[in-house]
């Protein structure tokens, strides 16, 4: 009798974990609260460094997904009970399954930029988030502001909703810096005459080729990097966004108008994940992501044997990190079940 694994969340982590587990011979059920798979990734236009689209990535992962993997769509997991040596997973619509192991791959929630009221998202029309911009890129539509004009200047604000005590997210969301640089270049490619600015606190170019992209942004695309955290923005009569920042490297306050302001919204722990982990009795940690058993050596294991984690639910991750994490979770599950 094959062992049954339930994977919660059909984003890139959940899909990859399921694919590997199926290849290893386990029976896999993937449960997803939306009607389609892919999570946040499906909205992404281009993934650095290979610049494939999110859809392409998802398709590639799904192509490795055996047809035997059952995907239960439209079902939000509301209950997870430990019953001796197996688990009962229940959904909000009455769906229920028994499993020998569970993998939580519920991912993250994008920070709601409305919460940084002083940045003007939802108040000034030409303030959008990085996710909105990525959707705009993916739609293939012209890059114009809400008035229908091509912006002469585009500004990117780093660390929106991350590294910020005022919204209770102390963590760094890891990938926004590289995304900002990537999006800045993409904007320049669509609007060669536009001036593009990045307002940052730090530039976290930690990955391979990231510094190369940064150099290219400066060299080839003339993107201006200004070290200064936005305190507030305002709107002028024409709908332009007036940015108030301190040019910390010069030590002077700086004011400039941009036609479009992009807020790099960070990753946050999802409240649904939090209620699930509360029900499981996991220890509460200040940054509210799921805490693995040992962050260095057992990053896919949790306090409960048989319950594993992968992907952004245990902290912000890039797509490549997520896929690696998903594969290692699958192997951890295999190790647990084969014993």
């Amino acid at each position, binding site marked *: 009798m094959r062992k049954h694994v339930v994977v919660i969340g059909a984003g890139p982590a959940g899909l990859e974990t399921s694919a590997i587990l199926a290849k290893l011979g386990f029976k896999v059920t993937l449960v997803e609260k939306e009607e389609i798979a892919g999570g946040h990734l499906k909205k992404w236009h281009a993934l650095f460094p290979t610049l494939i689209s999110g859809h392409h990535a998802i398709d590639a992962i799904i192509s490795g997904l055996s047809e035997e993997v059952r995907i239960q769509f439209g079902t939000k997991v509301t209950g997870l009970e430990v019953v001796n040596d197996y688990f009962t997973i229940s959904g909000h619509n009455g769906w229920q399954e028994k499993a020998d192991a569970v993998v939580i791959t519920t991912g993250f929630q994008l920070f709601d930029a409305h*919460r940084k*009221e*002083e940045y*003007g998202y*939802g*108040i*000034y029309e030409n303030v959008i988030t990085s996710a909105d911009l990525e959707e705009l890129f993916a739609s293939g539509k012209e890059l114009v502001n809400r008035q229908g004009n091509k912006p002469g200047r585009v500004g990117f604000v780093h660390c929106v909703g991350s590294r910020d*005590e*005022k*919204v*209770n997210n102390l963590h760094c969301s890891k990938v926004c810096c590289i995304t900002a640089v990537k999006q800045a270049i993409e904007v320049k490619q669509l609007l060669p005459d536009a001036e593009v600015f990045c307002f940052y606190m730090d530039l976290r170019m930690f990955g391979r080729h990231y510094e190369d992209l940064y150099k290219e942004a400066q060299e080839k695309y003339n993107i201006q990097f200004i070290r200064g955290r936005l305190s*507030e923005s*305002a709107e002028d009569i024409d709908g332009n966004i007036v940015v108030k920042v301190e040019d910390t490297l010069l030590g002077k306050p700086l004011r400039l108008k941009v036609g479009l302001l992009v807020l790099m919204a960070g990753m946050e722990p999802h409240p649904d994940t939090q209620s699930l982990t509360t029900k499981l009795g996991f220890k509460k940690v200040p940054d509210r992501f799921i805490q693995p058993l040992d962050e260095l050596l057992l990053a896919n294991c949790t306090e409960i044997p048989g319950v594993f984690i992968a992907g952004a639910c245990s902290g912000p991750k890039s797509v490549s990190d997520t896929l690696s994490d998903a594969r290692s979770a699958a192997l951890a599950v295999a190790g647990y079940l084969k014993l």
Partner: protein
Amino acid sequence: MTFDLFVLPFFFGLLFLICVLVVKYSRWIALMDASDRVKAGMALFSYSLLKTAKEIFMESLLHHRMFKRNPLLGFMHMSFALGWFLLIVMGNIESRIYSGGHINPPYYPIFLKFFIHDKRVLPFEIFTLPGFFRFMMDLLLLFVLSGLVLALFKRTRSRWFGLKRTTEHNGLDKWAITSLWLIFPMRLLAESFTAGIYQGGGFLTNTLGSFLAAFLPEKYLAYPAWWAYSTMLGVFFVTLPWSRFMHIPTEIILIFLRNAGIEPGKYPGSFSEIELRSCPRCGVCIDVCQMNAAGQTGSTAVYFIRSLREKRTDVQLNSNCMMCGRCLEACPVGIDTLGLRVGARGVDNQFIESDFNYLLKQHEIENEKKAEVVYFAGCMGHLTPGVTRAMVQIFEKADINFTFLDEAGSICCGRPLKLAGLQEAATKLIAENTTKIQKTGAEILVTTCPICYKVFNNDYQLDGMQVMHHSVYIDYLVKEGKLLLQPTELQVVYHDPCELGRGSGIYEQPRNVLKQITEVANIKEERLNSLCCGGSIGDLLMNATQRNIIRDNALEILCEPQPDVLVTACPLCKKSFSSANSVVVKDIAELVAESITIPGNKAKIIAFAEQ
């Protein structure tokens, strides 16, 4: 006989007390500003004297405010105050009648039962009630003793009195309380023993006396009991000027001076010395102070006042107060705790030099538009653009000729400096802003921030200009028919900001507006008892973690009715509450802007055009 040695402790104690009081009060009155002394002198011959008498009766004797807080607490305080007062008054009348109208030495009425211990029938009593005075005096003694019993209970069962915490008393206060608490039991014993011997007492003392005669040698105990009674009185009087009971005479002077029009809460200053000693350490301010829940128990008003009295400058105590005004509201004596804090901060922060000369260049800028209404968002308003935008929409929809004075940025209104005790620095900012505001020639100044509103109202001299908070202005627009609002299905809770509610007395106008567009749920702590959001610009010391605890405690109570939206009228409150990310928080202006229908006349035009 009308004298015995045992009266000496009482007599000398009283004499000592009177001398000390005369010296202290004359010194304080001498140190008062000349203008204040004139006010006080004139008040002696004005109607304010009646007001003073009424307040002394209602508060110092009846403890009316205490009763409102908790009936048992009020009764306890009242029984001591009113009971003892009536004992003295009635005792004096009684002794005058007994001695045939002669003026007696002051100790005579107090120790009457020692000197006159038989069952004399007074001429007065022949035609009325035999034993009337004996009955009344015993009744009043019982009244006071009931208060004493309650006071003893309160030490361990304060919750019965509506108090979770009571004041921790120090050194001399403990002596004073002990002597006070022993006075009336000693009186009871002394009178009872004497009544037991001579049967000259009333229903209480006779009964107790006969009961005790059964197993106690009253003949030998009576005299020592009178000595004990007198000694307890003596000790009480001697310790009074340096104990909490200094509030008894000082409160009366405070009420008189306050009704004479002298401004309270200006520290340092001799009026504040009188205020500081009017604090009875009743402890009512402790429970209402939200900082206790955040583990900061030391800053409460009663301990702060104690530190000032003892001249123990504690910058922590002075600076760590949210200035929310809940203690001022709860104080039965009405001590201006806020004014005292600001005064103390003024002393602490003297070293701060402010140089605002860089603002003088602002004079040269002549870009103020002329308009009927000038809108001032304020510092905090700029960090809540949702609110300022809503106000602009409201102005536009109501067709108001307005100018958004600080759209591009503002000079601070000056109140944060005031709250830090830096009055002089604040006046410089006030001067700059006054010039700018007056240059608009507007009739109405509308402001979004209640902190700004308070200082505009109280400290700015804006000739020919009416100052309104935006919630009041919206209410005015609705009443004038300039705004038509569409009701929604929203269930809301309205939070009274400290500076708008208790600070400026504005409770109804925001509710009037909200009731037209939403359903407003009532909560326990609202209006005068509203909770502080924790955001407070008045607290100079508290860190974010401590503020968040206060915020969360407040939110628990505010969100009890599970509202769809928590509505507030202050940008600082909005920022504070929304940082918790637990309930939707909106300013009243935002809700109004979302509910504006097309103004009446325009709707008619459109309907006509569509025909």
